[in-house]
């Protein structure tokens, strides 16, 4: 049976995925359009979207700003780490291990750790001998510094892992060839190493960006209460005592999902375009 129809083996994974995502998308659509209210009669309307619009504009901007800052920082630090780890085999092992150890730490735990490090009563101001008044508001402050740094920390380790894996198998051979042909360090970095790292860097950065856009707990724990990133806004509306806020929570969730999906699609198109340009 399975030998003749190997597609049957897809079912244990495909059926729950389809059911769950289908149910989520349909429910969110109906709820956000007023067709599935917890109280009152169903009525097609864009009221939910309209009533969250003032907050939504702020939230989309803030979400994208946090994701951009964190991803940019993670990409730079992660790429640098990957280059160091792959270039010098033995002495950089400690760095490789430190980065690898950061990857499996849960984000919520990482956020708690960053809080303990950067709060005004945290470890860093103590080590620098600064009092709470001298220390800037990194946690829950106006610039979302602790939130951005938490994502940048965790995701830089992820970027280093992905880019490092892509470089590890191929870079040494090409690098040696280029060196034999007389290319200097800067030239080798620009024309050999970076082009080899670019596809992996793009994929890893996209995954990080999409993750940050949809993630709740870090901004909730380390951020301030207003304005809110999209997931924090959605969750607050969802758990609000006012049942009429449920359609609004659904509307914000729809927007969050759309932003995440758009970023993923844009990056996919960028990768394909890059491939075509080179071919």
């Amino acid at each position: 049976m399975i030998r003749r129809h190997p597609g049957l083996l897809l079912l244990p994974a495909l059926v729950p995925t389809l059911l769950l995502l289908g149910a989520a998308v349909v429910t969110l659509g109906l709820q956000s359009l007023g067709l599935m209210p917890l109280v009152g009669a169903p009525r097609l309307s864009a009221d939910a979207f309209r009533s969250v619009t003032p907050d939504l504009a702020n939230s989309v901007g803030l979400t994208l700003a946090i994701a951009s800052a964190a991803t940019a920082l993670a990409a730079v630090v992660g790429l640098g780490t990957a280059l160091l780890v792959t270039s010098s085999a033995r002495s950089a092992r400690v760095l490789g291990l430190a980065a690898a150890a950061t990857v499996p730490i849960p984000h919520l735990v990482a956020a708690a750790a960053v809080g303990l490090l950067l709060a005004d009563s945290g470890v860093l101001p103590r080590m620098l001998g600064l009092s709470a008044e001298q220390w800037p508001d990194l946690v829950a402050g106006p610039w979302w510094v602790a939130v951005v740094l938490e994502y940048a920390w965790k995701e830089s380790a992820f970027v280093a892992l992905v880019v490092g894996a892509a470089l590890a198998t191929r870079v040494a051979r090409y690098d040696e060839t280029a060196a034999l042909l007389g290319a200097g360090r800067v030239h080798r970095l620009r024309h050999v190493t970076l082009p080899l790292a670019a596809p992996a860097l793009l994929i890893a950065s996209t995954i990080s960006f999409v993750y940050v856009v949809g993630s709740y707990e870090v901004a909730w724990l380390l951020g301030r209460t207003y304005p809110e990133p999209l997931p924090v806004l959605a969750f607050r509306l969802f758990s609000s005592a006012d049942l009429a806020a449920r359609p609004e929570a659904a509307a914000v969730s729809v927007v969050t999902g759309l932003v995440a999906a758009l970023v993923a699609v844009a990056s996919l198109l960028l990768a394909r375009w890059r491939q075509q340009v080179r071919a």
Partner: protein
Amino acid sequence: MTRLLLVAWFVAPLVALALWAFADSWAAGSLLPDDWGRRGWDGAAGAGLWPALWRSAVLATVVMLLATPAGAMAARALVRVGTRLRAAAAALLLLPAVLPPLTVVLGVDVLLLRLQLPAAIGVVTILVVQALPYTTYVMYTTYLAHDVVYEEEARTLGASPARTLVRVHLPLVAPGLAAAAFLALLVAWSDYVVTVVVGGGLLVTLPVLVASNAGTGNEPVVAVLSLVAAVPPLALLVVLGLLGRRSRRQPVAAAIRPRPPVAAVRP
């Protein structure tokens, strides 16, 4: 120098955790805790650390046991089916990694409530679907490099399908299975939003406990809870790394490769 700074970047938050976890008292001006001890550990135990650790371990194990075989089967199918079905199925199976977990969980919560399923079943289902993109992807790359010749050989020599699966197929894909299982475990172990929304606060896993204690101002307790949540995945990573190194030295394939007939090696 750059290297040192980067190492510091990666370990600084963990150092903060470790210091706070064993600090009994730490005055505002001091460089290091004034008093070391286990106040944080007693406080964390009182907050329910050990039952939460147990719940997290059970949840992660169940999700791993479901998501790993399902992902492996799907991956095995993906390398065999036609290109059209492969593209469509792969896109669908990767979708849960793109859609934010919070979006999915806020969508299905009403349905789960109406179906009146036990919360644990809802949490496990959602987390298995969240883990499937990772297990499927890892097993897909494993099966791309996998040679079915060994299995066909075993069947020709008269091994039953079950015996072939256990003695030939599974040992060959074991490294991929281990990586896939680790990722599935990690998805469930790290989850906060799914557990807290669907579990309604009644299913208290380690991350839920960390979240409810963070911001209470009791740093040693938060540090202990976080440390206990961070150590098991790290320990598993070390174990997997050591196992991987051993199996690279002794490839499984070598063990099942047909030995030369005894007569041939006799002088």
